[in-house]
């Protein structure tokens, strides 16, 4: 199981998939934070290239990744197109003009940069999340970052209920249809039915949550003073190396962007 609860086959023994969840999240988040600061093709392009090269090391197959990521790809194309059309940088040769729609060389470059940046920010997060087991994440958060066990394992248990709630949502829809509700053209009435269904889901979720809390307390979760951990998460040199590598790559990308004059911070 992974955080996205997909059926994507990943190889848990791959060099990067094996890393500590906290290290993976840190390595994925640091470069993304830096990319949020600047909009330029050089730093985004370099980092995206690095992440693309690293894909096999995460133990994620290309076909599966593409199958999972096509919505993200679609979003990227929309971001690029939207930026290309609506930017006010309209210099360079005109490529396409149809009524109010104007696409020039400069606006196309702006669009591509925007798409590149979003891809470079999203991809590492997706790779990390696809290869992190939620149980390992909770263990690592508790053991390395001293996150309270009550929060980490409570969230983990609640997380396990998500697919049950999804199934319940379907059942509630059928139950409403059986009562003669739904299929209305009147939007106010449709909204009222949807609201009732959401409320019923909420009631069910609270009930399940309460039962889960009782079940956890029955096994001593609340009363636990000195909790041990059955699964020891290790933070090895390889984990440090992963974070260091990510920092180094980010520094390299930023330096290159500054040196080539492409670096353009958003707030300046």
């Amino acid at each position: 199981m992974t955080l996205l609860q997909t059926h994507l086959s990943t190889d848990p023994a791959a060099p990067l998939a094996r890393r500590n969840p906290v290290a993976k999240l840190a390595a994925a988040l640091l470069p993304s934070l830096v990319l949020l600061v600047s909009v330029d093709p050089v730093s985004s392009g370099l980092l995206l290239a690095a992440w693309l090269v690293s894909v096999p090391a995460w133990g994620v197959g290309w076909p599966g990744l593409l199958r999972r990521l096509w919505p993200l790809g679609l979003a990227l194309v929309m971001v690029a197109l939207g930026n290309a059309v609506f930017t006010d940088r309209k210099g360079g040769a005109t490529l396409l003009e149809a009524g109010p729609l104007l696409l020039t060389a400069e606006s196309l470059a702006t669009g591509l940069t925007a798409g590149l940046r979003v891809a470079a920010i999203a991809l590492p997060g997706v790779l990390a999340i696809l290869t992190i087991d939620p149980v390992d994440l909770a263990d690592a958060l508790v053991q390395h970052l001293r996150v309270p066990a009550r929060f980490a394992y409570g969230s983990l248990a609640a997380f396990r209920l998500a697919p049950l709630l999804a199934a319940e949502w379907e059942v509630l829809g059928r139950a409403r249809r059986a009562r003669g509700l739904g299929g209305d053209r009147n939007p106010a009435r449709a909204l009222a039915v949807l609201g009732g269904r959401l409320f019923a889901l909420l009631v069910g979720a609270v009930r399940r949550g309460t039962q889960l809390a009782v079940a956890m307390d029955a096994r001593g979760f609340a009363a636990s003073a000195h909790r041990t951990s059955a699964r020891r998460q290790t933070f090895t040199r390889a984990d440090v190396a992963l974070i260091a590598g990510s920092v180094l790559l980010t520094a390299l990308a930023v330096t290159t962007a500054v040196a080539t004059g492409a670096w353009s911070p958003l707030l300046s």
Partner: protein
Amino acid sequence: MTGSADGSGGARGVAVRLRGFGWRYAGRKAWACRGVDLDLEPGERVLLVGPSGAGKSTLLRAVAGLLDPETAAEHEGSVLVDGVPAAAARDRVGMLLQDPESSLVMSRSGDDVAFGLENLGVPPEHIWPRVDAAFAQVGFPYDRDRPTAALSGGEQQRLALAGALVRRPSVLVLDEPTANLDPAGTATVLGAVSSALAGGSGAGTTLLMVEHRVDVAAGLVDRVVVLEPGGGVADDGPPAEVFGRRGAALAAAGVWVPAPWGPPAPPFTSGPGGDVLLTARDLSLTYPRARRPALSSAWLSVRRGTAVAVTGTNGSGKSTLAMLLAGLLPPDTGEVLLDGADRPLHRWRPRDLCRRVGTVFQDPEHQFVARTARDELLVGPRRAGVAAGEAAARADELLERLRLTRLAGANPFTLSGGEKRRLSVAAMLATAPDLLVMDEPTFGQDARTWAELLNLCVGLRAAGTAIVAVTHDEAFADALADERVTVAGGVLAADARVRS
């Protein structure tokens, strides 16, 4: 082993001692239970019985130390486990709850059992051997990495049992552990309880259980305690004596009394029969992201004035069949046609559908959409365009017939289990449908509601209604079904026991 730990604590230990115990929840007028005096000796196997509302679950939670005094308006008396107040003795009590899906914490089986040991602060090197021993104790057939989501209900409950036993409790408390299971799952869970307590580390464990299928639980215990609503312990003794003395009274109060002492199963009565009302042709359905079809190529016809029982294990596809027959799910292939209509049932508008087909869901709460019980009965008729006066008259008649008149103004969510069931059936009958589809209608019901449901179905069928009941309940199917169909692995088979 647990007895020796506190053998020094004076008199030979009583495992559980309740004195004058009473509990009233905040916002309730009546006490959930009151005046309970009870002693359980170490190693005793005790079944708690009583009509619904006798406070059985409250008592179990009190023993498990899970009652929060902040949720009580008033409480009195004492509950001691091994001589210690129950709230401070949580580590000595293991508990198994009704719904295993909401009691498992982790995504891998081994991690889930280990969870209770981590909370105890057991050193990591001792955790896994104890997990493996608990697996063996309950006969868990998989390894530690088995995803808990891939287990059947019975297997999940066995895993939850391992999670309770791994903490080596001196008292094991079971709160209707088989309520959500099919007969096969029930047998494996109760089998696991009985063998886990038969020897080894489980031998000295005291068992306290509530189980509404008293017939299946009676074999596990050597003592039966009868609770009376608000009246403490009404009777106490070996099963044969207690049921011999009180069998008839308990049965009249809705308790399922086991075979030699309970009333005989109701005899089969056949329906009047009639023309074909519903035809299902070549129904198949595969849920998104499922590996195999939930139902493949099912053919079925249902006649007016007959009852069809659909049986099969959990996950066999019988509930899917019910949803398809009721027009609530679109099939991948095939269609369901009602009474000569051209348009398949799943494409009917909801307001048209509810006039002809009523569906009773397994969980009544899923169907509640109104603020009061009476409003609940007016929803369908209003949608189907029935005149207000006629709908109101019908609602009052149904409330009367199902003993709900007293509760007409109550919020449906606040009713008891049996009342919720009766209300959900009444709500579907308000539009006088030709076909009634029921998914596990008798699930979790006491003997009284059970008999009422059966009589209601018999009456509806005599008036020409067609009934399709998906059920695990063999006694219900035996008493009602004119025809029987079994589903296994998504494939339909007419049962050999067809009555003509």
